[in-house]
């Protein structure tokens, strides 16, 4: 086959498929932004690939008007959910890695399996239960659900991290007379900050992107952005160009996180495959 002798020439051809693939990944982003920046007059399905003649913000303005309350709802759901999840996950991860009790090796997989279940298998009880306890409809019910179904992955990430911390640190703390609380807060927490970032980002992203739980558990006025966006796209009184701009707005927060904290994001992703 090809003799790939000179490193220089080898590199050169590599860029061709890479760049072609890059285009494939960028096409949707191009359409979202390109359409978003056109004025209403310029928008037409037959010219969707043409660049805008100038920067107009009609679409973004309209999309913002339509989605603003829902973006705020998403924030109200996602920030508490991610925060509480991080705290719970760190506690569980610490105990399961460093403060093992008899049966800890059973508890861990029992928790972990929850990560993979199809939520359709719990939907009927969930809706019934949440409305019985009066938490259906509002944003707090959704926070609770994201926290609980987030326990497996957050526990996993923290446990895997804590397991890498040398046992000698714990022993030393114990010799100094520290109990579980002291060991956790003084020794482990400061070390676990990178894991906090990973877990926070993971929970933020998955709660932000959730649709299924939100659509069964929130009222219209509490809809997060995904449900509202799907509704916009379904209603079609809203033109497709506004849908494009709205899609972009809905994706901005998680994209920003990805751009600025990509390393931590990826690390969370990898835990999903049970690999660190």
């Amino acid at each position, binding site marked *: 086959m090809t003799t790939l002798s000179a490193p220089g020439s080898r*590199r050169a051809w590599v860029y061709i498929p*890479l760049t072609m693939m890059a285009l494939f990944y960028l096409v949707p982003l191009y359409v979202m932004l390109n359409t978003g920046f056109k004025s209403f007059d310029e928008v037409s399905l037959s010219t969707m690939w043409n660049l805008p003649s100038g920067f107009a913000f009609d679409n973004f303005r309209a999309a913002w008007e339509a989605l603003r309350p829902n973006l705020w709802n998403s924030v109200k759901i996602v920030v508490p959910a991610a925060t509480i999840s991080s705290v719970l996950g760190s506690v*569980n991860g610490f105990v399961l890695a460093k403060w093992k009790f008899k049966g800890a090796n059973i508890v861990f997989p029992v928790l972990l399996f929850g990560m993979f279940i199809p939520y359709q298998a719990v939907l009927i009880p969930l809706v019934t239960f949440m409305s019985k306890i009066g938490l259906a409809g509002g944003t707090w019910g959704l926070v609770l659900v994201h926290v609980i179904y987030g326990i497996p992955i957050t526990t996993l990430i923290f446990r895997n991290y804590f397991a890498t911390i040398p046992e000698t640190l714990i022993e030393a703390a114990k010799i100094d007379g520290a109990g579980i609380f002291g060991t956790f807060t003084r020794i482990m927490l400061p070390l676990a900050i990178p894991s906090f970032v990973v877990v926070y980002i993971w929970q933020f992203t998955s709660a932000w992107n959730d649709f299924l739980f939100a659509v069964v558990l929130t009222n219209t006025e509490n809809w997060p952005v995904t449900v509202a966006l799907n509704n916009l796209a379904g209603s079609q009184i809203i033109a497709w160009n506004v849908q494009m701009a709205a*899609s972009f707005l809905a994706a901005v927060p998680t*994209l920003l996180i990805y751009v600025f904290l990509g390393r931590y994001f990826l690390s969370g992703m990898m835990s999903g495959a049970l690999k*660190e």
Partner: protein
Amino acid sequence: MAVASAEKTARPTRKSRGNFFTLQHWWGILWVLPSLIAVMVFVYGFIGWTARVSVSAWKGLLADYTYVGFQNFTDLASDQRFAIDVQNTAIFTVVFVLGCLGLGLGLAILLDKGIRAEGFYRSLFLFPMAISFIVTGVVWRWLMNPAQGDRLSGLNLVFDKLGLDFLVNSWHGTPTWGIAAVAIPAVWQMSGYTMALYLAGLRAVPESLREAARVDGASELQVYRKVVMPLIRPVTLSAIIILGHISLKVFDLIIAMAGKQVALDVPAIYMWTTTFDGFFFGRGAAIGIVLLLSVAVLVIPYLWYTLRQESDT
């Protein structure tokens, strides 16, 4: 990069026994108890509850737990719509998993060559992961607009302009195979992730092994086939399981792209419509249980294997 330098999977650092009656021991249990209870109720309790509904006659607004045995399951077996669901899931899974594996491995091999701007490309291939399936669905719905003639738009318009008329197609409007078109955005979204998994796997293959093969006169292609591929087979297995369970659960993407139509129906959507639009709670629960079992068949051996391997090391 975190992945490249990733440590071996976590390992338990000491045997935990002998301290059963100590205070410390109870503290540990106490700390995980809230989470454990929550998961017991919301995961296992609710699954049990769903299982109970799945063998009930519940149809209509008010709960009816009259036991009907496996009636709902046997009905599903002869339900033509469910047969479409199974067929669609199969097609979707094949296209999605193979697409992600092929693209992911290809990109990982290209990036593994130590090129400049590796970070840039890698970030580019991965960014769709950060986006929700709903956003993906809404955008691709317009890219894959099946309108023909002078109403041509989206990717079809590009094909037409480039003279690639033979590529113009009706996407998810195609009979039987329409679901494969829905898998394309899913590949777009998840192939970067597969690439990252493979890249981590490739980086873990010691350069000395490759070098040794090259010294033995192996071509670059042979190095990959004979040396690298066998070593990253576990990565492929992980990826198949992760991607496979995602494809069994696919829901949001189809709802956003195509709404509720039988042609593109999957079990997750059938469960949803039959339960909440048609009030067939028993049947909906049965579909939920079938979904759960198929995911469990895939995931439990994997979980067991991974955790056991971990405690062996």
